[in-house]
């Protein structure tokens, strides 16, 4: 197969019958002013939407309250081992010491890929930060990086995401605007996550935890 030749044949043929674009080839970047957002109402909407999708949202009053809530979730589910993202946000919250103090083992994420996979596939829960929360759909958005790997929010049965309250955006459009406006290169992967993994492929009956997590908690701080 000659990909270059195919490319030329396909594009040349299409061009004979196409029109040059006379429309915007860039996303419009109109950001709603941050001050105007009503975080209370956005959280209300987020909470309703994520519950409908089978997840749970929690609004913590402050850092200490968030840690207390997190501890309660871990204890209630009887979680013994966790994997954690290394983003600034989870570090700031001091999650590591809290989790350790609760007698829960934090599986270390090695650079070696096989060991790293083992940890993620073994852990009972994955605790990660999230970059955005979208109020109208109950979605959290993780832009993956060195410090927030993809498997953490996928392989363990429980996923707990901690989100800064002011990262609550109304919808996907405003989020896209925010991501694009950074002007830097796009992250290699962005995951939009709305509640636990779901299937209805057998007799249209909904089942949670098909491949991804069975339980998703979003704690706002």
């Amino acid at each position, binding site marked *: *197969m000659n*990909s*270059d030749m*195919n*490319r030329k044949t*396909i*594009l040349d*043929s*299409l*061009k*004979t*019958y*196409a*029109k*040059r*674009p006379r*429309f915007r*080839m*860039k*996303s*419009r970047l109109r950001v709603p002013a941050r001050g105007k957002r009503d975080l209370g109402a956005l959280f209300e909407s987020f909470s309703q939407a994520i519950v409908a999708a089978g997840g749970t949202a929690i609004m913590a009053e402050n850092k200490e309250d968030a840690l207390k809530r997190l501890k309660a979730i871990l204890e209630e589910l009887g979680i013994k081992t966790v994997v954690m993202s290394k983003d600034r946000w989870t570090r700031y919250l001091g999650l590591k010491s809290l989790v350790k103090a609760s007698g829960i083992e934090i599986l270390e994420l090695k650079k070696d*890929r096989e060991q*790293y*996979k083992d940890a993620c596939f073994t852990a009972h829960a994955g605790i990660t930060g999230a970059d955005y929360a979208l109020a*109208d*759909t109950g*979605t959290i958005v993780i832009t*993956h*990086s*060195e410090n927030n*790997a*993809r498997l953490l929010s*996928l392989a363990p049965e429980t996923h707990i995401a901690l989100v800064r309250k002011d990262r609550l955006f109304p919808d996907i*459009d405003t989020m*896209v*605007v925010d*991501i694009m406006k950074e002007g830097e290169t*796009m*992250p*290699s*992967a*962005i*995951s*939009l*996550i*709305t509640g636990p*993994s*779901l*299937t*209805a*492929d*057998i*007799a249209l*009956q909904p*089942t949670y*935890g*098909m*491949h*991804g*997590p069975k339980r998703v908690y979003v704690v706002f701080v």
Partner: protein
Amino acid sequence: MIPETHRFKELARENLLNTEQRKVLSQFAMILRALRDAGFASLPDEKAAMEKGREIRARTIESLPYLLERFEKNALKAGAKVVWAKDAAELNEFVLSLAREKGVNLCVKGKSMISEETDLRDELKAAGIETYETDLGEFIIQQAGRTPFHIVGPAINMTIDEVSRVFTDFLGIQKTDSPEELAMHARRFLREKFKNAGMGITGANMAVAETGSIILVENEGNIRYSTTTPRIHVALMSIEKVVPTMEDAAHMLKLLTRSCTGQKISEYVSIITGPRKQGETDGPDELYIVILDNGRTKIYQDRVLRGVLKCIRCGLCAAVCPIYTHIGGYAYGWVYSGPIGAVLNPLLLGLDKARDLFHATTLCGACRDYCPAGVDIPGIMLELRARMMDADRSLGASEPPRGLKGLYRLWTWVLLDVSRYKVASRLMRLASSLLARKGKIKSLPGRLSGWTTSRDAPVPAPRTFHELYSGPGQERRPS
């Protein structure tokens, strides 16, 4: 899969007799329509949102090559590799030789209609590369040796019992009537595969020209795995999957998930831009984006027929179609089912091989009215019928039977003139009154018998609407 589109009539008849399946279908149609309507009602302005989606798809297709160029440029910039394949054989050959070259012996696959179109899974299997469909529905039909019953729900027609039997055979589990238990068996089985696979193969719901990203929409998480654990990710797309900007993609996403399942958004949406970056522990080392033509550039040359390329594969047209909801997906005989399949299968396979598909329609227009991408399926069906009569060789239509062509000519001649039409309709009424018994025509002679094999034909009223409207004793025709 080997096309069976030429067996449409036979398959449709067979499927119509399956009463269990018809029950499932009518339920499926009802539920999906309700979910869809609720999903769209949650938009601030449903009508405007539909209009905008159709406008995006229309201008995208109009400027397709330029958007593809931009997409490629930005995908390359992000570190992806872009490969152009002319046809199914080339795509398969590329993926196969890549797998061999990289020493891959286990593949996990997300749902991709393109891979169904090229039979990629069978090719990989034949080459000794273990390959698993990982979407639960696809996994079930792979193990059952069936073909997709619906674009979005490939196994929705199967009963719990049937699935259970497939799993007892393949996974060696105890029989169960709990869908959840069955799903968890598949989860456990596929988890091991996700962990060890060397290659992940997915489709692409959208390819964003502005950023070179591909967008993948799913509910289960199997696509996230397929793009996370393997060292190599191969994304398959056909040329029409591109959208201009991320802003447009966000809008199309809202319409896509609402039309698929009624969801405001699917559980997972992945926006993938290039392979993993340095320092990242997961994600593929290499991302290959394969762009497939497979006859689409030819369709593109035709202003009317190219409308089919606007389709975003939501599957809604099937759920609202009075034909699909009776005969189901198998009768369409190839990859695509429902109204979109009735036009796409003939265009991709050649009209002769699938001629019954675009004739089996009521032309009610529900598919067109519901379509978030603005595909005028009934219009395309009529166009295909005309091309069939014109023996359009470029579309794979051979010379129609002489008699039939003559008949259509005669019909056209009659319809083009009012007095000829009046005479003809009088003759028709005379003939039908001669054949009628107790107000019904029970059987028509010779080649016309097809009209009366499964139902009685009604006898036309003694006077036509025109005659009633302007005849004596009636209200005067308004001037």
